């Protein structure tokens, strides 16, 4: 008891992330990029509906922060509630902001295992200091405590970062609340490549054209998005630089140029090119240049996905008579077939740890997301829609974002890799499809 009191006298001990100059600089530049470059606000925000919950949820209470007009603590609570790993305990009228005032027995009686307290205080230069502590109710100790000095337009991002810290402390996995998602929004006859926070807020259009766009793919550092646009009357691969707002063509050869996938070092892009009469996977430098054919394959080969070590590519091919998932070494050599059940297995993506892959499979007329383990070859069906499509891993490998049709409209949905937690993200209008979950921001 005494010990933690002594600890608490130290102001917000632990790795003081918010005061780490380098980290903060990166964070600030990311925020600046968000507010300056993505300057076209989308008309409608994504809204999220939770349609399933996990088991063994951790009971946690988030006390509304002191002087929290911007609502930082409510964003933290919403993040934790949405991810399905936590059971939110109502903090009632409690106004505890200081660790010295925390009555642990009361929180224990309310059923909370963990407690989050904090506040927002004026700092120098018109900035604000956002402080929080994550406390273990049973052990009566502080698990984490950080302070962030931010400007007022960084409150939401700060809340997501705090939620990430809490998630990591409580689950052992890195949180994805402060990551971004990209997707294609079709409204009337316009197609927009949009980028939004992982919770659907702050949607911004980064490309808006009157022709279809498909297959957005984030660069590993999160500063660029490759995609396929039909604005030239056929499929051409572009890369959009999110920092400069500029874009360049990566591949515009005879035939279709499509299915871009970044190598893990961000230097190369694998893509599908049909210039020799077959849809085949090629690799080209991100800046452009002469594409190298990976394999002179029979039939269709498309949808490449790099292994995390960059040595392998998994892809879709119908060389055996039906579309199935195959694996080939980037250096070349024979392709190895990975899926054998059913006659339609497509859209593979490596998991971030490289131990499994997700893909889309057809079951008695339904199209659903499944995950297959490399070591065992076992696969697990994860979704139950009629027309699911385009699965993409969250960077922590715990969640999968995918496209679906709900009430006749294109929507995005999220499922946990254990299949238990399900969420729907819908727009007020238009169709959303082709999601791509962005990387962790370093």
């Amino acid at each position, binding site marked *: 008891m005494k010990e933690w009191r002594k600890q608490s006298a130290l102001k917000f001990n632990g790795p003081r992330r918010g005061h780490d100059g380098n980290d903060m600089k990166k964070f600030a530049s990311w925020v600046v990029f968000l507010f300056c470059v993505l300057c076209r606000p989308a008309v409608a925000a994504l809204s999220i509906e939770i349609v399933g919950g996990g088991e063994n949820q951790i009971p946690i209470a988030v006390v509304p922060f002191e002087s929290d007009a911007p609502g930082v603590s409510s964003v933290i609570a919403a993040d934790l509630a949405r991810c399905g790993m936590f059971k939110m305990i109502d903090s009632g009228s409690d106004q505890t902001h200081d660790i010295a005032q925390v009555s642990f027995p009361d929180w224990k009686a309310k059923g909370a295992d963990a407690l989050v307290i904090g506040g927002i205080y004026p700092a120098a230069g018109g900035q604000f200091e956002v402080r929080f502590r994550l406390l273990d109710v049973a052990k009566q100790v502080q698990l984490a405590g950080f302070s962030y000095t931010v400007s007022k337009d960084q409150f939401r991002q700060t809340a997501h970062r705090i939620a990430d810290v809490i998630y990591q402390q409580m689950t052992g996995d890195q949180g994805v609340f402060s990551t971004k998602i990209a997707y294609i929004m079709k409204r009337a006859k316009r197609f927009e490549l949009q980028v939004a926070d992982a919770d659907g807020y702050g949607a911004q259009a980064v490309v808006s054209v009157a022709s279809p766009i498909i*297959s957005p793919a984030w660069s590993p550092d999160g500063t660029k998005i490759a995609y396929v646009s039909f604005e030239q*009357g056929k499929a051409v691969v572009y890369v959009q630089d999110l920092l400069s707002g500029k874009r360049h063509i990566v591949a515009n050869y005879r035939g279709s140029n*499509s299915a871009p996938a970044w190598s893990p070092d961000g230097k190369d892009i694998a893509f599908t090119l049909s210039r020799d009469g077959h*849809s085949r996977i090629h690799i080209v430098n991100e800046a452009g240049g002469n594409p190298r054919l990976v394999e002179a394959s029979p039939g*269709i080969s498309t949808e490449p996905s790099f292994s995390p070590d960059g040595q392998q590519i998994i892809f879709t091919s119908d060389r055996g008579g039906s579309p199935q998932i195959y694996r080939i070494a980037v250096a070349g050599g024979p392709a190895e077939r990975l899926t054998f059940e059913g006659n339609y297995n497509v*859209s593979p993506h490596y998991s971030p740890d490289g131990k499994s892959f997700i893909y889309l499979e057809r079951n008695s007329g339904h*199209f659903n997301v499944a995950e297959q383990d490399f070591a065992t070859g076992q696969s697990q069906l994860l979704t139950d829609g009629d027309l699911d*499509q385009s699965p993409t891993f969250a960077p922590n490998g715990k969640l999968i974002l995918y496209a679906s049709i709900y009430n006749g409209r294109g929507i995005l949905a999220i499922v946990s890799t254990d299949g238990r937690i399900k969420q729907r993200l819908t727009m007020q209008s238009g169709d959303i499809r082709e999601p791509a979950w962005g990387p962790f921001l370093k």
Partner: protein
Amino acid sequence: MKKLMLSSLLVSLLAACGSQPTKEAAKAPEQKAPAAAAATKPVAVNPLNDPNNILSHRSVYYDFDKSIVKDEYKPMVKAHSEYLVGHASAKVQLQGNCDERGSREYNLALGQRRADSVKQLMEAAGVPAAQVSTVSYGSEKPRAAGHNEEAWAQNRRTDIVYQSE
């Protein structure tokens, strides 16, 4: 002809939208029609647009995940091949399409193969390669909007599109 029909439709739409539609406004396109037709094409009906001619049929339809041209579409493809052989200046673009289901990227590759399957038939019938180009729109330009087999069947197709169109 298409333009004419469109303009008459527009006029009648305008007339319908106006607060006081008059008979004169509704009649206007009928009066203009013969003059415009005479000015553009003094010849007989273009076989490509004659509903009684097989050349007015332009779409080859497929089964799911298939790119084989079914027998029922071969006479139509053959007729277009003969027309192209007989009209060296005519050019077609074969546009491959797929229904919305499954993978958009795999569909893009499949649409290319569908267009190529028609191209191969045309080249086998003696059409010079220079007169035929192909493109795939995958599942990105559906003709029918629904999420059901009726719409999907419409969208699994290759369109034969003449360059002037």
